[in-house]
Structure formats: C-alpha cells, structure tokens
C-alpha cells in the first residue's frame, strides 16, 4: 500500500521515480516544505536561478536539447506570475515541462492571502493542462499524470499548484505502473489509408516540397533520420521552419534553407510554385505563410500533425494525417518502398530551384569598415562547427541572422523562442542546455537589448561553473524594431535605441565571467578563438554595423513572391493596412 510520507516527500519521491535529475527553481514561503525535502536528498539536483522566468526558460533549454521533460519549482504569487512568460513560451513552441508552484494553504485560498494568486486561473490558457492539488493523496498520481501529458501528444507545459498544507500533510505514495488517462489519448499512428493516399500524391508530383517544422524535433532524433530517408526516396526539396532547423543538415543538397519572413528566396519561391506540399510537423504560422490568399496557390497540400487543431486553422489542406510525424514518415517510407516507387523526374523543378538559388538571398556585401553582423555569425559558425555546438538565441535580428548563417546539422542543437518570440530566452536556455550536456560548447547568440532581459542569470552560470558563452551582436539598437521603423514608419526610430548600455566586459567580470570586446573585423577571429579557448563562461561584446537590416524579408501582409532581397527594394513607409499587421 506504499509508504506514508509528507506531501513534500511525495513530490521529491515521484520526481525521482520519474527519472528527474535536474530541477530549476527559486524558493519562497509557499514551497518551503518541498525545498526542505530537496535538502534532505541527493538524487535530484536543484539549480537556483535569479528570476522565475529564467527557471522556465532554462527548463525549456534543458528539455529541447535533451528530449527530456524540464522541471520547474517556484513559489506562489509572484513566483508563479513570473513564470507565466516561460510557460506561455513553452506552450507556443510545444516544449514538455512540468511546473510546480507553491500555493497558500487551502484554508486561505480565496482570501487575498500574502503571496496568493489564482495560479490555475492565470495559467489555464497558457498551459497544456493544470492542476490544483487539494489532497496529499492525489499528489503522486497527479505528478505522474502531469509528466505523461507534458511529454505525450503535442508536448507542452503542465502546471501543478500545490497548497502549503498539502505539502505538509501525510499520505501513502506508490509508484504507479503505466499511465493511461480516461479522456486524454494522443494518437500516435497515422491512418494507413490516408498515408497510402499521401504516398501516391507524392509519387505523382512533379514539383513536390517537404515543409518541415518543430514537430520533427519533438518526435525524437529518429524522426530527423526518417526525414532524411524520405527526402532521399522522393528526391523532393526540403525547407524547414525556424523551429525545425537541424532536422536536415544545412549542407544537404536538397535543403533549401529556412522559409518564411526571413527565409531563403529559393525556399519561399519553391513553396509558392510547388504542386505538392507535404507539411511535416509544422503549423502554417503567419511568419511562414505570408499573405494567406497568395500562399502556395497551385499546390495540393498534405498536413501531418499530432494535433488535430492544427489542421485547416489558417490554410485549407487536401489531406490531413493525424499522428506522430516520425511514426507517419516511417509508414510512408514502408508504403513507398513496398509499392516500388522511385523518385520522379524532377529535372525541370530542380532547374527552377537552381535559378532561385543563384540569387544567393542570404548573401551580403561588405561596405565600409564596420563588421557586418552576418559576417560575425558566419565566422562564429566556421570556427566552432567542429565542436558541434548547441546554439540558443534571444529574439530579433540576431536570431534571424543566426538562423540564416549558422549551419545546423543535427536536431536538438538549436534553441530559440519561435512562437512567442520572448526576448531574454537565450541565456537561461543556454544554461539549461549546458546542464544537460556539461561537456558541450553552448553559445547564446544574443542582441545587446535582449540579453538585458534576463542578464541576472550570469550569476547562475557562475554559481554552477557552467561554461556557457554569450555572443552579443551589439548594434546599439533593438535592431528588428528599428528595421521595421525604417521600412514601415518612415525611419522614425521611436524608443528603439539602446541607450545607456552597460560596459559588458566589466559586467561579465563583476559576475566572475571573462569579458571580451570585438571592436571590428580585425578582432573577430581572435575574439571568437579566445572565447572558445576559455574554459569558463565568456561574454563577448561584438560591435557590429549599427544600421544593417535583416534580409531577405517578406514584408508583413505580402506574399512569398514579394520578397525584399536587399536594401534596394525597401519601401520606406507602409500603407495603413500593412502597418496594422504584426
């Protein structure tokens, strides 16, 4: 019948039984019993962050790089509300997390008690599921169920709110067997008849394209392998969303690069002109589709997704296959081979693609003396690629330049906030990834504005001797905001200048980090090398051209065929309709 323990001990025991090795958190009044239970054991390592938002991003970085569930422990009230941005970020990017929040004792709930907030109410629509546990005996089953929900189906964050008295009271705990939920039953296998139909459509296509997304990463490393096999079997070009980078190697001859607003010309043109689109674990996000009524007008579309609500949300598809993308690709390959299909003659299609590729849309031209941000990222890639680094980013121009110019060859090496676009994601995410892979080279490619949003986490890296590297692309502007102001608002740079920046080198040193400044092109290689060579954490302040824009770009509200390739195509002021779009 199990052993009698306090609620707090049950939490720790259940986490142990679930194989949890690391918890990211911050203590406070309403979680003191759980912290006391953590103190009296040595199986779970607790990482003390400096702000609860960072605890969640660190857990995301840990989860995204390792494929495990990330675990967060915070207190009630402000602890929980500070975690909300991270929870929402994980929901948008389908990252499996379990977030434990302390709550005031049950008899005080609803009385506006000290550090009370309605955590389940606040997180109801930004979590995959949430619980308020009101009986200690429920803690064990809820924790096991929460992990099952977080990692199965379309992964996401699950919040468990635990009142303090529930942590103190005793109940019996037994480790449950396999979890099966009475209503929640994610569909893993795709419908075979639909898969057969998809294979026939693919075999008959003259201009196919594989449009892949974060679902391929979430499905596990095998899915990336299967995607490469599917690409080989069909001969089709492959493009990836921001979230899917790494599933196909950057230098794969069939890879067209990232698509979407800052994607490659060839990827977007091929999406527009294809006759068959196979969407694998992506969701037709507005940053990918551009103007909906002009999106890939001549194609038939097949959509493979584990989440039924992704089908026909914005783009109507001809065939929807619900299931895990890895499992569906495996079945597709079986059918493809059993039927003796061979890659169709796509010579004309590849000729066309070759023409688009020749535009070299990620190219950039060195003008003047200043170091170009694209060049900095390119060199960072070339000088670190042998180490197979894990890259995280903040949000903005540097993020898009990193997606364009840093080559990814494997899944789980690229950590970025895609859906929510959360500035301040990168440093804590890098810390989480470094904990999952202590020997790896982990680099946060940052902007000078974003990095300040969770800069307090420098202390966390110092405390746990994590050798993370922060490479700041410093152009003294919130670059993407400035770029939109230049392109859409007549160059009126309202509040987008990064004034009063700290001396990043001194700041790094104050936290026990090494600080390096790269002043211009001449220091670049030496600065990067010094960063790699230093065994501890390093912050690099890389000064780049201040007014560089991120191209190519599909202006919001425009179609794939209306890409701005370079500064020569800029429009200066948008009409009111376009200004209204995000």
């Amino acid at each position: 019948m199990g052993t009698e323990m306090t609620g707090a001990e049950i939490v720790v025991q259940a986490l142990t039984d679930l194989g949890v090795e690391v918890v990211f958190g911050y203590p406070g009044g309403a979680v003191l019993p759980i912290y006391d239970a953590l103190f009296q054991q040595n199986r779970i390592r607790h990482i003390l962050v400096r702000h609860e938002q960072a605890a969640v991003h660190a857990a995301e970085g840990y989860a995204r790089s390792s494929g495990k569930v990330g675990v967060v422990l915070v207190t009630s009230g402000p602890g929980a509300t500070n975690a909300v941005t991270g929870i929402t970020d994980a929901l948008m990017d389908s990252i499996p997390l379990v977030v434990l929040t302390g709550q005031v004792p049950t008899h005080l709930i609803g009385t506006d008690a000290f550090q009370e907030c309605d955590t389940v109410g606040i997180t109801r629509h930004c979590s995959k599921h949430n619980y308020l546990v009101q009986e200690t005996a429920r803690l064990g089953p809820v924790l096991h169920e929460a992990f099952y929900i977080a990692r199965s189906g379309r992964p996401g964050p699950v919040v468990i709110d635990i009142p303090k008295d529930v942590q103190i009271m005793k109940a019996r705990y037994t480790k449950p067997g396999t979890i099966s939920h009475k209503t929640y039953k994610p569909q893993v296998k795709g419908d075979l008849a639909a898969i057969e139909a998809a294979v026939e459509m693919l075999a008959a296509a003259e201009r196919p394209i594989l449009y892949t997304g974060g679902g391929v990463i979430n499905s596990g490393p095998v899915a990336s392998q299967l995607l490469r096999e599917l690409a080989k079997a069909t001969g089709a070009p492959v493009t990836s969303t921001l979230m899917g980078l790494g599933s196909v190697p950057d230098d794969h001859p069939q890879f067209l690069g990232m698509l979407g607003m800052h994607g490659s010309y060839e990827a977007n043109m091929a999406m527009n002109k294809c006759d068959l689109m196979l969407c694998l674990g992506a969701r037709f996000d507005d940053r990918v589709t551009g103007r909906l009524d002009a999106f890939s007008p001549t194609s038939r579309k097949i959509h493979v997704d584990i989440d039924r609500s992704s089908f026909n949300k914005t783009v109507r598809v001809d065939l929807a296959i619900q299931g895990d993308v890895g499992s569906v690709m495996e079945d597709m390959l079986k059918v493809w081979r059993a039927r003796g299909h061979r890659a169709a003659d796509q010579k004309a299609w590849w000729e066309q693609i070759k023409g688009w590729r020749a535009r070299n849309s990620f190219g950039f031209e060195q003008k003047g003396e200043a170091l170009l941000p694209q060049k900095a990222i390119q060199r960072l890639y070339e000088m670190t690629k042998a180490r197979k680094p894990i890259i995280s980013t903040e949000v903005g121009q540097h993020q898009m330049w990193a997606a364009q110019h840093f080559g990814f060859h494997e899944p789980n090496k690229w950590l970025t906030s895609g859906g929510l676009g959360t500035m301040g994601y990168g440093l804590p995410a890098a810390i989480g990834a470094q904990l999952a892979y202590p020997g790896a080279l982990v680099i946060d490619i940052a902007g000078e504005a974003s990095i300040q949003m969770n800069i307090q986490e420098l202390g966390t890296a110092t405390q746990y001797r994590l050798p993370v590297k922060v490479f700041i692309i410093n152009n003294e502007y919130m670059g993407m905001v400035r770029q939109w102001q230049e392109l859409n608002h007549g160059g009126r740079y309202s509040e987008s200048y990064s004034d009063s920046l700290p001396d990043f080198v001194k700041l790094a040193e104050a936290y026990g980090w090494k600080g390096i400044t790269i002043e211009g092109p001449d220091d670049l290689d030496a600065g990067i090398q010094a960063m790699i060579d230093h065994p501890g954490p390093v912050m690099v302040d890389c000064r780049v051209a201040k007014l560089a824009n991120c191209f190519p770009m599909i202006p919001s509200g425009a179609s794939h065929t209306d890409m701005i390739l370079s500064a020569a195509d800029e429009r200066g002021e948008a009409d009111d309709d376009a200004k209204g779009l995000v």
Partner: protein
Amino acid sequence: MKHLPSERHTLSILVDNEAGVLARIVGLFSARGYNIESLTVADVSDDHAVSRITVVTNGPPPVIDQIMAQLDRLVPVHKVVDLTDWGPHVEREMALVKVAGTGDKRVEALRLADIFRARPVDTSTASFVFEVSGSSEKVNQFIALMREVGLVEVARTGVVAIARGAEAV
C-alpha cells in the same frame, strides 16, 4: 476563411465534472474569438463524474471545425459532438416569463399562454409567472407577444439538446 457565411451549430460536450472545467471551455471560446449564443451545463452521470455542456455557437464551417478540434484537445473533455452535423436531434429551452397587468391585458396574457402551452407557476392579483418551453423560436415568439401585455422580466435556460433515436452520442 472567416468571410464564409456563418452557420448556427449546437454542440454537446461531455466533460469531467471538476472545478475549472467550465472556465476552460468558456475561456477557450473567448480567447480564440468564437461566439457563444447559449450555454448550459449540468452533471448528468450517476456517479457525478461527468457533466454535459450544450453550446450553441455560430461561425463559418471551418471555424466550427476548429472549435470542435480545440475543444477535443482539452484534457478533461471526454467527447465533443456537433449535433447539427450529427443529424436529427431535439433542441429545447425553457423560460420563466413575468407579466404584470390588470383587466383585459391580464385576460389576454392568460389566453396567449394557453395557446403556447405556457403554464402559470406563480400568480398574484396583478401578475403571472409563466413557464414556457420549446424551441428557441417558440420561446422568442412567446416573449415578443408578452411585451404587448405587460412583460416585466425573463429568465431563460439556454438550449439543451439530444440526438433522436435509440443511440447515445
């Protein structure tokens, strides 16, 4: 897709009878900008484990599909059925209608109530409360007529619905 003509659909949603489930459903509608024309909810199982929610919504067919898919992926939702798509079903609602007046108006109110099979469930020398049930249109019509004879206030249940025939959804 939001420019297609709107359709009225009646959905039956079977959910765990737990705290917060109704908030999840209602919050989903408001967060994603779906309409709710009416909503009813009550516990319908012997063991008080399952509640049945009936929602009348409207939107173009792709939006209705999206509503179904979004509801279906909520963890405590057992089943979502679009009764409008399902086929023949019965929809009923009940209203309590208070009318005040004397003389001819009072007599006329009673006569009209009789035609609508509305039952007086409370009476004073100057007022009636009628209980009327039926389709929403019938209830609307009854209320409209009562305006002319001294309508004071109305309480309505919203639509409850069930499929015709021997089978459960």
